[in-house]
């Protein structure tokens, strides 16, 4: 019996992050509350180290290893680097928040890093099995993080809902995969693609499996009607965890979509296109409309994320390389915007006070013109107002849709974007035109202030380099087929 040692080099970043997570887990046991910063710094070092490794190991052509279950390509590299950056920022924003709420424990960082490993596995998956396992790893970390504030019944309830519904969605995804396996006789993404090339795309069984797979994906994205967990979880979870859930996993979910639908099932595009149209329209509609009725900003942003996922799906459902890269651009930008918005909520929160009602933003301009300005830019970007990059992201996906002749869909998208602008602008109105109820000055550490500034200004400053980013996205997409 021969056994060839797989080439583990491409997977070194994964191995590194995992090992470091274990190290932190152990080191943390010996740290007192005061010295917890060591865990934090180790976690940041892990992410930086992983970034360096990923950068060093970057490949120009896709490399497969572990019996083709692992793939390292441009898409994976770009997304991994983005995931590190976003997660590192999440840790920076979260630290003070955790400390003032008695949640400053090493497990937060450890679970966060395990989540990162899960995301990396999804991003680099070459096989339905690894895709699924990565998803479960990520999901499990997230469930635990949502429940992290053990004494909060709200958080526990949110975790419970997330867990039950997530398990259901995983089951559906797995069922869909098994059906596809039954039809194509393979679980390896590239092999499935080859098998499908010789098959009738209208095969009932294939579409049956496809629907289940898409339901699983839609749940992870939080697309309507599989979105119900999103507001409750975003709302119930501690804000630092919401920040985590709302940013990096979106990138992983994008990878999930790309690997499954485009890497493996692109031959079924005609079918999934129609399904995604329904999901996208429902998501944009329900997300934007219900967000208006919210008075809790975390819930509002949850609905906003649902609508953003609808916009993101527009890029995917155009089923052209151009559309995929615009969707990738969208999701990258969304991660940055979302990071800033939740970061701002954390920033305004203090010990014993959660700045999560809309009223808490009243008169922010009087309290701190600088943060009000940052929030203004964030909200403009979310709404898609021109000088910000958010506009460009929306423009690209809508262009992609128009490019394949779906003009009515584009019109619907624009209409919903206009409706959506209402609730973003309402925050701006609150900040600038209402009296502050609470005049306490905003205090934040230097690292948080700096990062927040960079984070938000990125949305404006990136404009001249949009071309470069789009090129990067389209290169990544080009390697898929």
């Amino acid at each position, binding site marked *: 019996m021969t056994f060839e040692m*797989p080439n583990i080099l491409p997977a070194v970043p994964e191995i590194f992050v995992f090992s470091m997570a274990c190290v932190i887990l152990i080191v943390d046991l010996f740290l007192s509350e005061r010295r917890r910063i060591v865990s934090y710094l180790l976690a940041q070092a892990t992410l930086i180290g992983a970034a360096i490794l990923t950068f060093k190991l970057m490949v120009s052509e896709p490399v497969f290893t572990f019996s083709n*279950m692992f793939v390292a390509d441009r898409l994976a590299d770009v997304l991994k680097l983005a995931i590190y950056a976003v997660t590192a920022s999440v840790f920076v924003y979260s630290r003070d928040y955790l400390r003032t709420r008695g949640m400053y424990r090493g497990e937060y960082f450890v679970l966060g890093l395990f989540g990162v490993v899960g995301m990396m596995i999804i991003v680099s998956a070459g*096989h339905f099995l690894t895709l699924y*396992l990565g998803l479960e790893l990520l999901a499990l*970390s997230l469930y*635990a993080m949502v429940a992290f504030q053990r004494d909060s019944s709200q958080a526990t309830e949110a975790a419970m809902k997330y867990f039950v519904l997530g398990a259901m969605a995983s089951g559906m995804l797995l069922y869909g995969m098994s059906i596809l396996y039954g039809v194509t006789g393979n679980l390896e993404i590239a092999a499935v693609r080859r098998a499908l090339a010789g098959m009738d795309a209208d*095969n*009932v069984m294939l579409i049956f499996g496809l629907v289940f797979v898409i339901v699983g994906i839609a749940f992870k994205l939080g697309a309507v009607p599989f979105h119900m967990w999103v507001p409750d979880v975003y709302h119930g979870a501690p804000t630092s965890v919401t920040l985590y859930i709302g940013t990096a996993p979106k990138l992983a979910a994008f990878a999930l979509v790309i690997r499954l639908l485009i890497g493996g099932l692109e031959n079924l595009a005609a079918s999934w296109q129609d399904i995604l149209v329904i999901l996208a329209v429902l998501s944009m509609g329900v997300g934007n409309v219900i967000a208006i009725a919210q008075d809790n900003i975390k819930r509002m942003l949850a609905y906003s994320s649902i609508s953003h996922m609808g916009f993101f799906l527009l890029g995917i459902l155009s089923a052209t390389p151009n559309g995929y890269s615009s969707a990738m651009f969208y999701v990258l930008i969304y991660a940055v915007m979302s990071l800033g918005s939740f970061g701002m909520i954390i920033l305004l929160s203090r010990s014993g006070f959660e700045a999560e009602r809309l009223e808490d933003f009243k008169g922010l301009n009087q309290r701190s013109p600088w943060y009000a300005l940052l929030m203004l830019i964030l909200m403009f970007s979310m709404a898609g107002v021109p000088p910000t990059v958010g506009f460009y992201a929306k423009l690209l996906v809508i262009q992609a849709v128009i490019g394949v002749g779906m003009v009515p869909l584009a019109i619907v998208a624009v209409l919903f974007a206009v409706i959506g602008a209402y609730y973003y602008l309402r925050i701006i109105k609150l900040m600038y035109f209402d009296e502050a109820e609470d005049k306490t000055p905003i205090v934040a550490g230097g690292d948080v202030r700096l990062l927040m500034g960079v984070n938000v200004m990125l949305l404006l400053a990136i404009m001249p380099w949009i071309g470069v980013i789009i090129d990067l996205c389209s290169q990544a997409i080009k390697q898929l087929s």
Partner: protein
Amino acid sequence: MEFKQFIFYFFSAVLVFAAAMVITIRNPVKAALFLVLAFFSAAGLWILLQAEFLAIILVLVYVGAVMVLFLFVVMMLDINLVRLREGFGEYLPIGGLVAVLLVIEMAIILSSGQFGLENMPEPPAYTADYSNTRELGRLLYTFYVYPFEIAAIILLVAIVAAITLTMRRRKDTKYQDPNKQIRVDRKDRVRMVKMRSEKKV
């Protein structure tokens, strides 16, 4: 009908029945026991597929360990059954309708001929010295080593998560520290109090 087929249908029928009972029966202990029955039936099906190792593992791990633990939990927790079932009847018509329709649809599609015997011919019989366990082990540690490792990580995360969420250090917990007990000093425990003798009033 071959005997093999009979066995298959028998186990399948028991499995479906037991699974249905798990979610419909009122008593949680009985539901857990029906789950045990479902596992046994599934194990029987696996034996039929010549996957003896998996069948035994299923019985050992799920029935022997998981379900016993589960039964303990169910028996120790005081679950209010009446409240749990509130609204069940209310949602039954619509829920049941959707469920039935879904089952019918799935049945139609799955019986559309894709998975019939003609499409999935019986694999060649294994030789006598074929070891199910060995083959599984070989595959898991070579071809599937990557997913196998990931599964291990998932288990680790599950442990970490469970401990994080449940372990608390209560400040008011009363516990003994033998170390302290040994090093106790007389002056820590005994205090000499001088009192004046009582006077007569």
